[in-house]
């Protein structure tokens, strides 16, 4: 089941942070906690770390595309061996630009895909998200029924209002 707690008004952010710390101390895993807002919040790593592998993915994608394009180009050049302008059949000089561009394309595409993946967008069966109005911050905790009390306490302690539970009770 999920517990949602809302935080409003001026110091919402501070209270959210407190709530998060509370939750972590009570042993809720980072992946069970979600913070909803309609502008980016800066949450310190020690409170709620979200590790990103995006740059790594981008590099891999780039390398992959680079290899592919080099292979493809050399294939096309040799598949119909027309020598033009006294250039060699396959030359890095003459095709470097193409390699570069396609490599970059690889980086761009993987970055985008990876963004979708990490953000979890377009994913089927996502738990119902609370509807956050401007200025409001909302914490969602996934917990088993026996933990729910603890979770609720910690949210209340942090001053969350309108705490509701949703999802099947297990």
């Amino acid at each position, binding site marked *: 089941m999920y517990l949602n707690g809302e935080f409003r008004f001026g110091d919402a952010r501070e209270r959210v942070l407190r709530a998060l710390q509370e939750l972590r101390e009570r042993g809720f895993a980072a992946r069970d906690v979600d913070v909803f807002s309609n502008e980016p919040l800066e949450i310190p790593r020690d409170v709620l770390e979200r590790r990103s592998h995006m740059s790594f993915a981008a590099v891999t994608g780039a390398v992959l595309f680079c290899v592919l394009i080099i292979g493809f180009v050399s294939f096309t050049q040799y598949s*119909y061996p*027309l*020598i*033009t*302008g*006294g*250039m060699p059949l396959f030359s890095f000089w*003459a095709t470097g630009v193409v390699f570069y561009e396609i490599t970059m394309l690889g980086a761009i595409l993987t970055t985008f895909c990876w963004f979708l993946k990490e953000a979890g967008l377009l994913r089927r069966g996502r738990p119902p998200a609370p509807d956050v109005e401007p200025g409001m911050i909302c914490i969602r905790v996934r917990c088993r029924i026996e933990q729910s009390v603890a979770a609720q306490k910690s949210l209340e302690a942090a001053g969350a209002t309108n705490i509701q539970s949703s999802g099947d009770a297990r």
Partner: protein
Amino acid sequence: MSNSEHRWGMAIDLDRCTGCQACVTACHAENNLPLSDPESAAKGRAVHWIRVDRYYEGEFPNIRVKHVPVLCQQCDEAPCEPVCPVYATYHNEEGLNVQVYNRCVGTRYCGNNCPYSVRFFNWFDPVWPSPLELQHNPDVSIRMGGVMEKCTFCIQRIKRSKDDAAAESRPLKDGDVKPACVQSCPAEAMVFGDLNDPGSKVSQLAESGRATRLLEELGTKPKVFYLQKAT
């Protein structure tokens, strides 16, 4: 590319050339060049695969005229070739710089990149008032609008001579192949032949001291050799 059987080249003797332009008409007759009309000619769209550049040098009365027949130089390292995105122009194993009309999409990059400006573009589909089309040479394509065209060293004549030789199962000998311009030249200023064959007339002329090449400094390695005036 000289590992192949032939490597066609041409020598033009500027000492013999009289600038009579017989070659120009011969080329028109042989290669179905599109007819210009005053409008298109005024737009600089008249097509002459071979042209006779004329320059005046000095001032009257000590003035001289220089006639230089310029056709596709069939460069070994042709600047026009690498820039074509679709391989419509390329180098074949006989050293010819070939233009494949039906592959051409008309980027005209090759035309820009040709220092000799011997490439011509079909701005429209060509029209011949009937019955002028009866004169079309069936051995040569009628180029559709939107494609580049240029001197082919009369590849159709080369092919014919080769076929004849093959039919008679004999080797091609020097002088068997003559492009239309070479054939028509009254002063015999032009010589065509195989540069791979050291005995051929053209190779000997190319070796002779008078041989120079047009815009040689560009390193395009043209296969057309100009024999300068002896004086």
